[in-house]
């Protein structure tokens, strides 16, 4: 039991020391203490440096659509986590857990976890965190 706790502490320490490859400040742009869930379909994947963007179209109750811009890691870091050009097809239904923007009425958010709901495959935002 004690050994397991120690291992957890070490793992947590290691995870927290992994630098986030943020060019601008994620803490400044997004409210990292809050989580929102966005359900929609993937309309564009742009894998870029310094940050990548996933575009998710969300249908409102009145039938209108809104486009969310989900910001994530650099393309190289995404690739290490298994998100590459083949990870999503345009039109794939997805569920995104994200930090909301601090900016009022913004449809920008920072990726924490994304799930392709057709088969339940999901990806987390931290190095090594690939959730099946």
């Amino acid at each position, binding site marked *: 039991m004690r050994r397991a706790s120690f291992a957890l502490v070490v793992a947590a320490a290691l995870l927290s020391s992994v630098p986030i490859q*943020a*060019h*601008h*400040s994620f803490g400044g742009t997004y409210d990292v203490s809050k989580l929102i869930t966005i359900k929609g379909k993937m309309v564009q994947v742009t894998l870029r440096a310094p940050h990548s963007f996933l575009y998710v179209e969300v249908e409102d109750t009145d039938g209108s659509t809104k486009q969310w811009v989900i910001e994530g890691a650099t393309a190289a870091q995404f690739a290490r986590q298994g998100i590459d050009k083949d990870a999503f097809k345009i039109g794939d239904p997805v569920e995104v857990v994200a930090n909301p923007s601090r900016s009022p009425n913004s449809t920008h958010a920072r990726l924490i976890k994304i799930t392709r709901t057709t088969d339940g495959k999901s990806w987390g935002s931290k190095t090594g965190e690939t959730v099946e």
Partner: protein
Amino acid sequence: MNRVKRSETAGIVILLASLAARPAVAQENSPIDLTGTWRWINHEDERDRNPGAFPGDYRGLPLNDAARMRADTYDEEVNSTSTLLQCRPRTPGYQPKGLDPMRIDKVVDPLTRQLVAYRVSYEKTAGERVIWFDGRPSPSPYALHSWDGFSTGKFRGDTLEITTTHLKESYVRRNGVATSFRATVIEHMSLEEPYLEVTFTVIDPDYLTEPLVRSATYMRAPTLQLPPYPCQPEENQPGEKYRVPHYLPGENPYLTESGFKYKAPQEGVRGGADTLYPEWRARGVTLAPPATQSTIKPVYTDASTHIAERADALRPRAPAYDKVEAVHVAGNVYLIAGAGGNIVVSAGGDGIVMVDSGAAAASDRVLTAVRQIHQTLRPPEMPESASPFGNTWQAAHAFPEPMIRMIINTSSNPDHVGGNANIRMSPMFRLLGYRDPSLSLQVFAHAAVQRRMVEAKAPNLLVPTDTYLSDSYTLYRFFNNQAVQIFHMPRAITDGDSVVWFRRSDAIAAGDVYNSDIYPPIDVDKGGSINGEIDALNKLIGMSVTEFMAQGGTMIVPGHGWISDAADVGNYRDMLMVIRDRIQAMVDKGMTLAQVKAAKPTMDYDPEYGREPGVTSRLVEAVYRSLKEKKK
């Protein structure tokens, strides 16, 4: 030869042979060698990197109230919305706080084998930063500013001291604490193998009350290879009109977040030089941190909040025009600066076309500068294989004097058209169709410029002779091997502003539509407006392409100030959009012009753009009137 003499001779031969075999003594001109690859060690200010600075956290920064107001109203999301900011590299005033590994290479003169420069690559920068050791002079104050700036190095004992100027506006913390384009950065690098210690100091006359000194450590990493960094800006708002996310003064809800989360007293969180010293600690421990996270309405009172009033109080001085200088812009385009408004010149085999003519009193010096530019074009020696039949180059240089073919005026502002008469009367003014002057474009401008000058009863020789009425106008033939296009910018500074695009040189003369270091002189009575001005800046940005990482490429010569690129113009546009939104909110509340002026809606930008008498008051009034009149 006796035995003694033989032995002497043998001794000399051996000595000479040994001297010849002896390696030359190496001459050292750098006491330490910093070349190699270095890994950044993240052991200072960890939270500044991960998750990044929270809004309103100014701990450890000797900032003034103008910097505070600017950061208080800043929204970091602008980095996601602006394609000109997404790939913005860090300047040396922040770079060592980034997490980039770096590689330092040595550049050595192949002849003297002396150290000429270090080339420094960071993972996320515009290319290679150069630190010069060859004692070269600083570039002109009108030269382009860059993210890396102009750096010179000097070894002081075992420490390398680097001084950097000509920087673009940037930040010292990633929550909107700005550094001005007037800032200087001084770095000290010392080696304690395998560690490289970098102490970097930002001296900013606009936003810091004393030097900001910070440090960072790198560790040698000989096998580290810097990865490629193909930064591609992403258009995040397809179909949407560009916006600058920001908070109105007093409306940012996050300014106590840092104090609340880190249990730090708000007075310390707000920063300032006093809070940096040990003496403040005794006071700090007596102060309670914020009990909740709430919106505060900061009050700004220090000297930086009075820059515009101080500028207005300056006694007007007659301009001296004693520092007129010519600076190369790009291709065959040059800037003549210091003669009132900036003058842009295309010089080559077809002669010279001038965009604007400066102030009347500076014309002699302007013509001298034109001659200097003409001299630089003259090849030192014509090659023997030159065509026996001659060419336009030879024809042009057969004249001892350069030939000014035409003037294009960007507006009717006196410091841009004042030299028209003197230039036209100069023997250097030789029209393309001089046998029949009526066939030649002489002084060209938008029709509104001519109309306004005639209405103002300006002397005939000052008034443009030829005009255009459409959205744009292209000269009927290439001039100096390039198309010259003139674009009308309606309702910007006035209703008659033009920008001139030299297409092959990829340089744009922007006139007063864009000034790199003062507010635009929008004149509502002459048809100018804030929204027209912002539209014009967007058009300029749309015409421009940066070379790489939001830098270089199309050169934009402002009406006043230094040669710029699209990133500088984008910065200027964002500043005006923030000011426009603030004044719009005041207009919506029904505030009078006097109340708006008293509220100082430009105060945080005045250190950079409001140091000339009258420019701030003129801008606030113009923005207020153009928004108010739009509302009617």
